[in-house]
């Protein structure tokens, strides 16, 4: 592999990312799957990096799931987006960052469609006024929240307590990066690094001391394509996609996977259990799986936050092997203790894959 070749491509896809004053909107589902991620995004950006991140409880879904499942037409989704922009305008912000990658794709698609078809934008403005008497400015900048962590990765590095280095061997940890489809595939120039070799997560990994693993099925879907998963009859196809990825990355012995989409870490994490049940095979060492993280969780580990505060106990695949490699201190007994040390009980442990 010629690293310089990738560097050249990355340099073609630079993105201007303002350093402060961002309007933040959450994902529909991330807080259920990875409850620490959004919380710690705000914790890191506001309290550690001192940035102005604003969110309002009045915001809604962007309509992306409904739009992509053809439950609502594009115009409806665009009007929902318009309302989101109206709330941003009312709050006095012009930089917009969604937590969900599909949302990011939806917002970019909406803005690009309006740019090409201004008459449609006019119609949506009219729709919004009729629906709720709101008006909006379009964001001056739109970035996914992983773009922001990428933008501030060096500042995070400077405050790091644990780098992505194996504390026993001193070697960089080998990290697979998986990018959500809606980040770059539709509008490569809106992504850091473009669509074929995106750099947003690779940049974080390299900055925090790790080594990025490139493997043949790097660009393959994780299995969370809606048609694969939301249609129950197709779920075997969903697992098959994940299986293909793990079979391909296995020879490289990655230590962890980093992702920036709501669905990708969920599927890459959960389907390892299903694959273990179906085939008896696991992809980590000694019967463990390969732990999968959101970029906020990994940033949180790098900054020294408690893994259980980060919500890592909700992962299917045990994260402890990676924590041990990084030298992150944690109390195994506290894993299933909630607020005020309340016992959250224990999940049922599978026999096909080693969990802690």
């Amino acid at each position, binding site marked *: *592999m*010629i690293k*310089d070749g990738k560097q050249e491509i990355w340099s073609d896809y630079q993105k201007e990312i303002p350093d402060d004053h961002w309007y933040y909107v959450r994902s529909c589902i991330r807080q259920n799957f990875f409850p620490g991620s959004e919380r710690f995004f705000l914790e890191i950006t506001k309290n550690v990096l001192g940035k102005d991140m604003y969110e309002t409880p009045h915001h809604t879904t962007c309509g992306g799931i409904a739009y992509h499942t053809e439950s609502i037409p594009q115009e409806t989704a665009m009007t929902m987006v318009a309302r989101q922009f109206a709330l941003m305008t009312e709050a006095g912000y012009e930089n917009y960052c969604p937590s969900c990658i599909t949302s990011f794709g939806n917002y970019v698609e909406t803005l690009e469609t309006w740019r090409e078809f201004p008459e449609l934008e006019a119609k949506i403005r009219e729709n919004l006024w009729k629906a709720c008497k709101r008006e909006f400015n379009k964001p001056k900048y739109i970035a996914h929240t992983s773009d922001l962590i990428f933008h501030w990765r060096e500042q995070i590095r400077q405050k790091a307590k644990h780098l992505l280095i194996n504390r026993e061997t001193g070697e960089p940890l080998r990290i697979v990066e998986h990018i959500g489809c809606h980040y770059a595939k539709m509008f490569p120039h809106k992504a850091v690094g473009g*669509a*074929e*070799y995106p750099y947003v997560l690779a940049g974080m990994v390299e900055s925090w001391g790790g080594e990025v693993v*490139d493997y*043949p099925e790097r660009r393959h879907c994780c299995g969370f394509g809606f048609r694969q998963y939301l249609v129950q009859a197709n779920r075997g196809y969903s697992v098959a996609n994940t299986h293909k990825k793990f079979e391909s990355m296995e*020879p490289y012995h990655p230590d962890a996977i980093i992702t920036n989409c709501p669905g990708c870490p969920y599927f890459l994490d959960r389907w390892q259990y299903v694959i273990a049940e179906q085939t008896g095979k696991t992809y980590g060492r000694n019967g463990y799986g390969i732990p999968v993280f959101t970029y906020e969780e990994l940033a949180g580990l790098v900054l020294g936050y408690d893994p259980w505060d980060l919500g890592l106990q909700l992962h299917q695949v045990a994260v402890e092997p990676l924590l041990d490699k990084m030298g992150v201190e944690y109390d195994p007994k506290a894993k299933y203790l909630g607020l005020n040390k309340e016992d959250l009980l224990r999940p049922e442990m599978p026999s096909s894959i080693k969990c802690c």
Partner: protein
Amino acid sequence: MKENVVIIGGGIAGMAAAKQLQVLGYQPIIVEQKSALGGHVAQWYKLFPDMTPAQDVIDELTKDLKGVNVFLETRVLNWERSLLQHEYDVTLSNGVQVHTKAVLVASGFRLFKAAKKEEYGYGVYDHVITNADLERWMRGREDKRIPDKPRAIGFVHCVGSRDLKAGNSQCSKVCCTTAIKQAIEMKERYPEAEIYCFYMDLRLFGKKYEDFYINAQQEFGVHFIRGRVSEVGETIDGRLQVKAEDTLQGKPLKVQLDLLVLMSGMICNVETQTWARELHLNIDNDGFLKSADNVMHIVESNRPGIFYAGACTGTKTVPETLAEANAAALAIHKYLSND
């Protein structure tokens, strides 16, 4: 005193036109920016369909240039209409100034930058090269990207051609036959290797081209897969994993290859466009220079005294280029005789 004719470009078009103009009694002046004559053909190994050595063509054209003024590593710095109508003052980078009534533009083409098709991994993965790289290697230039004993080789047609996203919707015309030629050449070198050509359509328009293609299948066992390559990746042992669609079988395809050759298309020369605009020469919507007419006046421009030959007006084969060069020389002769 012989009449000057400035020829911009020392490739085969410029060389053939210079040869003919000299016979007709003119003083051709070839201005070539590279250090040698011959253009792209001088970098090629063999020409289809008869596997004619490209060097033979260059040698044949070179031997008849004795009286021709050749300026190598030289560019046209300035080119403007003189005070006399329909005459031009051409200033070269070597300080020479030429006053002429006729200029032949034979500035050729450039190849599409294969790295722009990022999904194919040119410049990223170790064993991805272009058609031009392969020709140079076959001529004897070392290329570490080409493994010693490849077991499987692929050719991707239409790289940068017929591709709106790449900014070029035109067919590059010669790539299909070139791919077949190169596939045959590699099979001759590595008889045990499996060779795959991934194509959209096979453009085999010329004399004996269809036989060439059938021969590639029957005698050399080249596999032709109708479908686009979607993505190239690198395996842990350094081989290439290529994903494509086999549209005739109606299913996706994944192969592991030791070498992938991208058929980079011929596209317009951007430098030519720059001074063409300054001289108010028409540029066609494919970026190439626009002839006065695509049927009867293909070697003439929209400006009196400026003529075209070869790939500066569009993709051409070698025989077409040579024929056009001769036609342009005759057109210049007719123009200057009527003056």
